[in-house]
């Protein structure tokens, strides 16, 4: 198992996703002899999981069943242990495309945080690219490295525990792209420029507040970046529902008696079942994420 390439079968040491049902899942580390409790009963790794194909339906001890999924960076983002606020796939998608990441890209990132974006970057730049990720919180940096090892992508990433605003990324003129998710990104723009290749590259800064964006844009301009552009992307999910709307009763004279009865509250249920219109609808949930952050992109040219 590796987050950077697919495998068919579940193996000892893999990180896998146990899928219980609609939006309900959790990650598990497969261990010879290990077992995992689910609400449907126990999963015994050696007998129930190892050697099975990813995507299989597995029956738990109480007779209920779950699916075991191959861990993609997107599933990991939905299931990872939060050590900080994390970036979700909607923003990650945009960051990846607008930074022009692809196999072979060299990327600098700060902060590592919970590693949500890091996993997605590594997936995209593998097998020949490299991620340099800087995290100022020591425990977080250590935990991230541990996860990268566990997920078999540690050869594609270097984690460093330092303050990017003070000490930069520790590399010069190697990066195709730099990503910043720190409280004062404007303090790190100089370091970002230094990390980018001589011939140029792209930079992205993620900030929740508009004042951070304002300062970052100024700093980018001062450092000679071009194509500075700020955007925001929001996900809107639709639940697919079958909805029934009642047809009103105007007291059609033909069936006068009938219609009178249907206006009686106690019989309205059956009446509504007769006189109603069914349709499929994509329904917005009542509340959704209203803001994650602003994404500011810019280009460093040769000049």
């Amino acid at each position, binding site marked *: 198992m590796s987050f950077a*390439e697919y495998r068919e079968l579940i193996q000892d040491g893999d990180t896998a996703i146990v899928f219980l049902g609609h939006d309900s899942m959790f990650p598990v580390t497969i261990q010879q002899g290990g077992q995992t409790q689910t609400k*449907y009963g126990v999963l015994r790794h050696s007998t129930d999981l190892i050697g099975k194909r990813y995507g299989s339906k597995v029956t738990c001890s109480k007779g*209920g069943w779950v699916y075991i999924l191959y861990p993609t960076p997107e599933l990991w983002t939905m299931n990872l242990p939060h050590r900080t606020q994390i970036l979700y796939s909607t923003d990650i998608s945009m960051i990846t495309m607008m930074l022009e990441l692809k196999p072979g890209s060299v990327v600098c990132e700060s902060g590592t945080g919970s590693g949500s974006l890091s996993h997605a970057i590594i997936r995209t730049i593998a097998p020949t690219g490299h991620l340099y990720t800087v995290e100022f919180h020591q425990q977080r940096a250590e935990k991230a490295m541990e996860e990268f090892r566990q997920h078999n992508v540690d*050869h594609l990433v*270097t984690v460093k525990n330092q303050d990017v605003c003070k000490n930069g990324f520790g590399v010069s003129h190697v990066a195709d792209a730099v990503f910043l998710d720190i409280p004062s990104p404007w303090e790190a723009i100089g370091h970002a420029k230094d990390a980018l290749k001589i*011939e140029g590259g792209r930079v992205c800064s993620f900030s929740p507040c508009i004042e951070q964006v304002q300062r970052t844009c100024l700093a980018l301009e001062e450092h000679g970046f071009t194509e500075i552009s700020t955007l925001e992307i929001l996900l809107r999910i639709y639940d697919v529902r079958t909805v029934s709307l009642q047809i009103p009763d105007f007291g059609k004279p033909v069936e006068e008696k009938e219609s009178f009865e249907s206006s009686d509250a106690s019989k309205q249920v059956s009446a*509504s079942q007769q006189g109603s219109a069914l349709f499929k609808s994509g329904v917005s949930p009542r509340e959704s994420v209203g803001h994650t952050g602003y994404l500011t992109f810019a*280009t460093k040219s040769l000049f």
Partner: protein
Amino acid sequence: MSSAVLRPCARCVLSSMRRAWRPRKYCVSHTWVVQAAGAVSRMAAPVQLIGEGDYVVLKREDVFKAVQVQRRKKVIFEKQWIYLDNAIGKNYGTMFEITGGGNLQMKSNIVASAEPKEAGADNRNIVDDGKSQKLTREDIEALKEKGIKGQEIVQQLIENSTTFRDKTEFAQEKYIKKKKKKYEANITILKPSTRILAVMYYAREPGKICQLRYDTLAQMLTLGNIHAGSKVLVMETCAGLVLGSVMERMGGYGSVIQMYSGGGPVRAATDCFGFPKSFYETLYEFPLNKLEALISGTGSYSSRVIPAEEEPEKMDEESSRSDNEKQKATQDLVGDCLAESTESMETSLAESEEGVKRCEEVSENHKGGQNVDKKQVAMEKKQKQDERRKREAEAAKLLQDRNADGLIVASRFHPTPLLLTLLEFVAPSRPFVVYCQYKEPLLECYTKLRERGGVINLKLSETWLRNYQVLPDRSHPKLVMSSGGGYILHGITVTRDTTKTNTSCSERTEEPAPKKQKVAEDKS
């Protein structure tokens, strides 16, 4: 004053500089590194310069145009004819000015932005009588004929405006921007990328890409977990843009099978990426109208493995027929291209004050080098036919393994039949993503996929994109926004039950039963 990115293809080997920082493991053991080794070698040069024959993107303000660099070939961009000869040998990201005769001249430095200095507090005293500009149209034409550069003309216009200094800063800026757009012509030459081409197509020819907005494409690539080394099915009618973006993300590692309808696969936008030849070795195509035969195991695809040599006669016929069709389609394409080339050709992305105009065919790029000997043509045609037949058989074999790592659909066809058919070829525990310009077909598709089973975590979604203007004291969302970027349905495949198991947990219906009608409406 925008310039742009300059960089060699990032898939080059890691520099020793990085290695010095910290010892690291290499992934040489991975089979796909070996498989694509040929592609890697091409990337050795430290900084790639603009070369003849390169596919590049011209950029002026927010407007992009993809072209191929050819000597002494006129290119029209933003209503101006230009020659790209002088760009050859320069760095990607260089900014040029257009001089007389349409030649490019490198700009030595970023032009000093003519920032407003003296701004009136408000515009209460401005009466617009159309007489505030002292320069006449004739004056301006005269300046242009004298060869005065755009930047200077704009400066002259400002100096000869009687009202400029009384305008608010905001109004001044608008004025300068408008005039600059009209008289200044700085062009940057960029290396193509998914970012640039997706933005360009959405601005210039949204109809050609089923209105697929770039942020929606970004979602598809990420949700589809497109990455090096996988085997991906692509069914698109987006001019090959989606295909190209998938190929970029795969970097020549793994394989892509493009499904197509009609005479042949469409790859006009794919060509604009300027991929190395080696990338195309990992690209296969297969016609939709042979899928049924493939699935049912009838006709040419009766055995699971068909070596190219043993291909039956019938297959041969089909191949040559579809080849004829393709030829015809290509002719249509070229004809269409020529017919349209006299029309207005540019579209502005962000500043669409003039509305969206018709765009020219990007696929002009295909026309180069058609004057070859007829015999050679015939020979090449035969070779191509053979090659095509062989590739189709290889594609069939790849499909028959039914273990694709992903499926990406973005087409003008109804998504439901496509999904129901193509999912058969995808391995379990793999993501699939389908785009549709309309929401309603995806509602149906969602329902049908639930009925089919073998898919979990189905989500129907849309993204909202807002672009911002961030300027000192003048920050706000852009005044014009795209209100439709299309819809995405995505999910994950799992092994399919043939026997219905007895209820319990896992994948519940996910669609709750229609809410019980409350008995009385009176409970307010």
